[in-house]
């Protein structure tokens, strides 16, 4: 596999080979699916929309419905206003959503379509809403696209009625699976705090099979809920890349204090999340959560010899990779290579800080990297384990290194969108995956006489 990749040092400074990011619009589309009865709309060629629906459908194995402005060459020359106006009219008439969430593409951005003005000139039926986010594909990544759409939700919808804030927390979950959103909501619920989560893709992209298809499944934050988020007492913005912008705008626009946190992957990030709720709402942490936490610590102590001291390479999205790296350090593992495709110097600073604190030296940490970089690093100096999305499987096979699938996209395994990697339960799942993967490898590779019954 991949015999073409040279072993010698090569110059790779321009463009990406095997990217570790994709473009903004897919993130915006995913965020928009987290609004109840929302039609995500891609303002560009129909290929963009087709590709994003394909990518999300393959990851979630669920219907992903979105519309497109279907640009042709004419629209690309004369501007896409007519296409967007026609789209808005047709979408409300035929598909009847409560809200359309328009995101731009590199095409409409390069032309310079003024989307807010076009929306104002469009026929939007009474009681319906159209929001928009600018998501040119030549800026940021799918993660910043997600962030931009979250910010648009606040910009267009959130309102403060000026009255005393409600005893309720807004949680901006970040670009995570519905399994994670469900777990995060469960933790908030166990703490007895009233919650608005947006976007919320639970019961949207993890729907049941009931013999009845509904174009707009029952999940998602309603427009009303997002409006009322301006009256909540506190916002927890999980993951700086995906959620900080929306949280900060909500604070500025509606006076809701925002606490930026990591996505609760790993023990410490989950602890921080729970403490923020405890402090914010003056609630007692119930014993059930203390038990869950204790189970994680118990497991870490009991199984540390499965993974402690093993070298690991990680690639993924910054909001997940940063807390994951913290968990790996908690497990005593050595993150030798940590990369993300998404830009942001902060990624390198934060991870390097954690590595320094843990006394791990000699690691390579890179933002705006790609999987070719990762492959070369691993080829030069192997690791025991890879953690990353499905695209990493080629590196894994070429270099004969086991892979734990983590992040987005995962095309070659099922069930993952329903299972959390967040919270203490998510910790157990990650520990189990990492441990089992290493043990399976040991079982496969060891001599007959070393094949163990108990491990």
């Amino acid at each position: 596999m991949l015999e073409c990749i040279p072993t010698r040092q090569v110059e790779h400074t321009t463009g990406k080979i095997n990217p570790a990011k994709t473009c903004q619009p897919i993130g915006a589309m995913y965020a928009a699916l987290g609004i109840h009865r929302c039609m995500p709309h891609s303002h560009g060629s129909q290929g963009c929309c087709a590709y994003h629906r394909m990518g999300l459908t393959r990851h979630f194995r669920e219907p992903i419905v979105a519309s497109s402005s279907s640009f042709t060459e004419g629209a690309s020359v004369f501007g896409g206003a007519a296409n967007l106006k026609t789209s808005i009219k047709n979408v409300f008439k035929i598909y009847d959503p409560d809200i359309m969430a328009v995101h731009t593409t590199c095409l409409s951005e390069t032309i310079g379509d003024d989307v807010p003005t076009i929306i104002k000139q469009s026929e939007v039926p009474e009681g319906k809403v159209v929001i928009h986010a600018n998501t040119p594909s030549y800026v940021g990544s799918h993660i910043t696209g997600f962030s931009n759409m979250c910010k648009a939700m606040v910009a267009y919808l959130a309102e403060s009625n000026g009255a005393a804030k409600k005893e309720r927390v807004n949680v901006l979950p970040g670009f995570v699976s519905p399994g994670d959103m469900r777990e995060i909501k469960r933790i908030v619920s166990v703490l007895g705090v009233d919650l608005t989560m947006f976007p919320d893709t639970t019961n949207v992209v993890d729907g049941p099979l009931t013999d009845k298809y509904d174009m707009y499944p029952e999940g998602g934050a309603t427009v009303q809920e997002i409006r009322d988020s301006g009256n909540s007492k506190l916002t927890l913005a999980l993951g700086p890349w995906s959620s900080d912008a929306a949280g900060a705008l909500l604070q500025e626009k509606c006076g809701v204090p925002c606490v930026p946190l990591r996505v609760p992957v790993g023990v410490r990030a989950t602890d921080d999340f729970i403490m923020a709720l405890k402090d914010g709402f003056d609630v007692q942490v119930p014993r059930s959560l203390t038990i869950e936490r204790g189970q994680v610590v118990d497991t870490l102590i009991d199984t540390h010899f499965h993974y402690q001291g093993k070298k690991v390479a990680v690639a993924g999205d910054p909001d997940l990779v940063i807390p994951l790296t913290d968990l790996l350090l908690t497990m005593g593992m050595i993150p030798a290579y940590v990369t993300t495709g998404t830009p942001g110097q902060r990624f390198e600073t934060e991870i390097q800080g954690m590595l320094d604190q843990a006394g791990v030296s000699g690691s390579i940490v890179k933002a705006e990297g790609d999987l070719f970089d990762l492959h070369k690093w691993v080829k030069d100096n192997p690791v025991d384990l890879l953690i990353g999305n499905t695209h990493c499987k080629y590196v894994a096979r070429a270099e004969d290194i086991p892979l734990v699938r983590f992040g987005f996209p995962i095309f070659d395994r099922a069930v993952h969108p329903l299972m959390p990697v967040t919270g203490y339960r998510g910790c157990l799942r990650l520990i189990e995956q990492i441990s089992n993967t290493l043990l399976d490898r040991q079982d496969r590779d060891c001599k007959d006489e070393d094949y163990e019954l108990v491990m």
Partner: protein
Amino acid sequence: MAITDKQLEDMLVSYPDLVLKNRKKHLILKKSAESCQTIEANTRTIPGIISQRGCCFAGCKGVVVGPIKDMVHIVHGPVGCAYYSWGTRRNKARADDTTPKENIYSQLCFVTDMQEKDIVFGGEKKLAKMIDEVVEMLHPRAISICSTCPIGLIGDDINAVAKAASERHGIQVLAFSCEGYKGVSQSAGHHIANNNIMENVIGKGTQRKPGKYVINILGEYNIGGDSWELERVLEEIGYTINCVMTGDSSYVDIRNLHLADLNLVQCHRSINYIAEMMQAKYGMPWLKVNFIGVDATAESLRNIAQCYGDEALTRKTEEVIARETARVAPVMEHYRKICEGKTAFIVVGGSRSHHYQYLLRDLGMETIVAGYEFAHRDDYEGREVISTIKGDADSRNIPELHLTPDKENYQEAHVYLNMTLEKFEELKKKVPISYYEGMNKSMKDGHVIIDDANHHEVEEILRTIKPSIYLSGVRDKYISHKMGVPSKQLHSYDYTGPYAGFNGAMNFARDIANMMTTPAWGLIKAPWEEQRKK
């Protein structure tokens, strides 16, 4: 099972007037009594209508160019288009006599990753630099550059970059201006890819592969290993496969494409341009084939043998057909018992919706609704209508190449097949040489033909016409499941295959039977819910 005009009308009632007026032209209820039922195709999708269609880039890089295994394909644009077309079409590739493993780049994704400043100041230098680095790193035999939307708008001259890089490195660098907004679907991209490969690659080689019967297979992309199954059978009969366009193909082999006797055309839509242009330039005949289905495969094999009119070849063909059909018969019979009498709804691509009807027929299944995503009228009504198709602003943007006979390599079609002109004329009456009959002729009265089916129509058809299975793409698959209709992707075969040829038919039969009978369909209602009303 017949569908009525009323059912079709009801399906469209919620459309605004303009949409209704447009969509009516893309739907036909087959009635043989009506002499010429025409369908509108290859026209714009209405903005806001949720279509299955992709774009020009997807047709060019994704379908035709991407599978060429020994070229580095650099996507010039922001990251997304390269990312989504990376490995997702399942065009399998492996090393062979002319291409060692070290020259295969199929699993890699190359993109200039244009940033905002590149959009403002232009991306030509970045592209040139990336080419230089890739050449230094991998020493590929050739490189392709495929443009995405913003490239055309900012005016990067990829042809100039390609030309200069080609001179710098002494390898061919092909520039494909396949921006997503061109044309109305993937189809424009097929055409752009065909033109460039025809003009700049085909005919450059000089090595004819040894063998008495040397053939090309065009429009076969080796999804799930389809072309390997075809090669297994064709090689046993005695053919030499010169090149498959473009499944598991190499740049080296494509250069020699003209050094064969006959082009077989599997996917008419994506590759008929090359077949036609090779006929014009080299005189090489092409034969429409369909290797989807046991009977269809046997018929195609017989047709190919007839093209050579060689008794030994015919004998060997019959021997292989007899053995293979006997081998697959018990398996097909086993699954036929499960599938018999069931109905299918197919919407895919530009040929599959037709081809798979034969395989479904092998299983006793009837296709009651069928349509294409990006076909032209000739794919529905047959090539006889080509002269009546009116061009529009979108189709005129894609150049038509008008080729003249090649001075050195042109010979008359019958000479390629080593027969007299009279015999060749006879042959044309028996087998589809330079001809495709289209899908509509094989549909029965009361069945629906639908072009560019959209979400609303698919949902209505699944709900009201209730086919037993739905064969489509990944974007529709899970919608169908939610409605209780088993669905299979016919772009990617749900990650199995091959489905072509004899072994493929058995795989397909097994998968279709399994998807209809998987026990979980019986668990949809919880025991505490009301029993399902039958």
